[in-house]
């Protein structure tokens, strides 16, 4: 069965009948030529973005930021400050848009929710034994349910990279599907599920393409590159391969899936390169916080600094922008 022939849930059931059938499908996807993919990503990175396009891109990037703190030393105070910043990134400029979400550990969800309320800024929680994913399944599911109960709007789960690299694709598929079920809320709704691949550990672009398809078949709302705890984290070529996957998935099923590069994107200039790639690879439909996010902690301030530069014509020092 070719990728384009995949159009109904029944097809997915057929593909995931056994480890062997799933492997056959994933290994039947067209390969990714490393040199070619990296060249294309580099080529897109040379687009020259000026004036009006840049103003638009900076504001859009701010709206796509999942402002993140995932440290052992996180305190409620820090999370409150971060949530406040997500709602009003630039207190000096009311025209500055809010970030998309605040991304925290599950135990901080309630604190973040308390500050964010109905502001429109979502709370995202990393769950499933983040960042390694090495825990028993019931613990991962409990972790997820805790976060959802505490009010998380979005769940960022990690996959079991060991299982994937060992070729136990069906296990990875089932874990994602189960976590997706655990995202259900009592009101009948569901938290959005972002599936983190940790592409730095999967190593090859072929793996990135396969895991993207695997996650989409298992019900991911978003596919995400990295935890931010492993280097290399998000890169342009990895994101390129994932954008091609969501584009091809929509061709095959009509469904749109979001993409989130996370980790290592610190400069506005780099964020704009990602937006160019989204625009030209997946298409302009993905230029929206519903379908593309940046997982970042320091990127926001550079976006704000460049935004102020566009408006005033000069740079202010880092002290003119809040820490978190």
């Amino acid at each position, binding site marked *: 069965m*070719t*990728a*384009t022939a995949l159009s109904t849930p029944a097809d997915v059931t057929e593909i995931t009948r056994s480890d062997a059938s799933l492997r056959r499908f994933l290994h039947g996807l*067209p*390969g*990714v*030529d490393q*040199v*070619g*993919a990296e*060249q*294309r990503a580099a080529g897109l990175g*040379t*687009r*020259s*973005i*000026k*004036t*009006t*396009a*840049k103003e*638009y*891109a900076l504001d*859009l990037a701010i709206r796509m930021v999942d402002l993140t703190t995932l440290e052992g030393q996180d305190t409620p105070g820090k999370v409150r400050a971060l949530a406040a910043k997500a709602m009003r990134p630039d207190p000096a400029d009311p025209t500055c848009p809010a970030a998309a979400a605040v991304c925290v550990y599950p135990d901080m969800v309630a604190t973040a929710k308390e500050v964010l309320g109905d502001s429109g800024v979502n709370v995202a929680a990393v769950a499933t034994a983040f960042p390694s994913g090495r825990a028993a399944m019931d613990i991962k599911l409990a972790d997820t349910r805790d976060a959802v109960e505490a009010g998380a709007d979005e769940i960022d789960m990690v996959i079991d990279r060991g299982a994937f690299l060992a070729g136990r694709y069906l296990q990875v598929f089932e874990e994602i599907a189960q976590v997706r079920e655990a995202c259900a809320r009592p009101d009948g709704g569901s938290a959005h599920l972002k599936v983190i691949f940790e592409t730095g550990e999967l190593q090859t672009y072929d793996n990135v393409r396969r895991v993207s398809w695997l996650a989409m078949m298992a019900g991911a709302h978003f596919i995400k590159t990295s935890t931010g705890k492993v280097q290399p984290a998000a890169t342009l070529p990895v994101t390129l391969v994932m954008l*091609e996957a969501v584009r091809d998935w929509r*061709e095959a099923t009509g469904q749109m899936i979001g993409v989130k590069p996370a980790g290592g994107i610190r400069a506005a200039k780099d964020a704009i390169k990602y*937006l*160019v790639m989204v*625009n*030209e690879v997946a*298409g*302009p439909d993905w*230029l929206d916080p519903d379908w593309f996010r940046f997982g970042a902690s320091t990127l926001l301030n550079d976006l704000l600094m460049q935004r102020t530069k566009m408006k005033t014509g000069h740079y202010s020092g880092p002290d003119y922008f809040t820490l978190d």
Partner: protein
Amino acid sequence: MSNVFEYAPAPESRNIVDIKPSYGLFVNGEFVDGHGKSFKTISPATEEVLSEVAEADASDVDEAVKAARRAYTRTWSKLTGRERAKYLFRIARILQERGREIAVLESIDNGKPIKETRDVDVPIAAAHFFYYAGWADKLEHSGYGTTPLGVAGQIIPWNFPLLMLAWKIAPALACGNTVVLKPAETTPLTALLFAEICQQADLPPGVVNIITGAGETGAALVGHPDVDKVAFTGSTAVGRAIAKSVAGTDKKVTLELGGKAANIVFDDAPLDQAVEGIVNGIFFNQGHVCCAGSRLLVQESVAEELLDKLKRRVSTLRVGDPLDKNTDIGAINSAEQLARIRELSDIGESEGAGRWSPACELPTNGFWFPPTIFTGVSQAHRIAREEIFGPVLSVLTFRTPAEAVEKANNTPYGLSAGIWTEKGSRILKIANQLRAGVVWANTFNKFDPTSPFGGYKESGYGREGGRHGLAGYLKEGV
């Protein structure tokens, strides 16, 4: 496609180049007035007149050849390889230093996007001078002897004016020859800027002479009795005329002519990268590439999927102002060329092939043609046989590797080919069966000074680039 993210124009400044209202000929290290008429060179993107350029007549050609002969006998052939290398290295460095200026000028005069002149033409031109500078003092290791031929008459086309100049001049000078070079009549300006660079590099007078003009000037150069070597890149028709005119003389000739390359995509190919390679193969430089991948041979089982991907990708190509850094496809070089592309495309349509172009707005002035894909093409269609030399791709299908090879080789040309598959053994097997001078695997249109380039059959003879490129400028066995 309507798009929320419209990139604002990002034009490169033209202030960096100084185009003179008129240019003479560069003979014996100086610009001199020609005896003939003059002609105008225009910007293909706007039709604006850029400058007036002298048209060399037979007496001008004679003076240029004499100057080259004097420089050859008195100076250049007497220098050691190391001394010649110093000049070539100097030229290479000046090309890099003045790279932006050259890139802008090339883009204005030729119509190709600044992105390509900046990232491809100028760096590879400089690389050729660096590479052959390295050979100048090592010719005894080349396997082709160490004795130069004498005066080389070189004629280059309009598609890569500076790059073709570098391909021709660098090995000739490295081997100890002197040159008289004629750039194409529609794109003389970077060659004239190169003449200034020769002055800047203190190259001895007469070692490089640049004479501008059209076909008659070229014929006079080829026919001049004191020219020892003719090197030509251009159309097969002109190449044939040159071969006739030098037949029976002891002139050495290399010809690099047309092509109708097959780009073969197997069903196990990395499809997204193959799409990039197809785009790069036929839409790079508006398809004005003799080794362009103008025939796409795709395995039937993935044809539909690949074509969908290809059309979507081609829809994102940006056509327009060559000086805009975001432009992917610039202007067609001349009205004549545009007419030829239109004619052959119309023939393709009337022969029953399916014609497709993305919705794109073309500028009103200048010469423009949208990227175009013909599907359902068969070997019998003229668009599958004749070189269109424009952004027009013909798509054919095949079922078995043997059929792919058969179709790929079923052409009067044989300059280049491409293979796309994840299977290494298949790459090696097919590459050996293709009658083409260059075979790219999982990539296309890659050029490097260390790699020889040239054709089979009507694509010409002789090799340029690499160690093999020295052969055309040395007396073998001496």
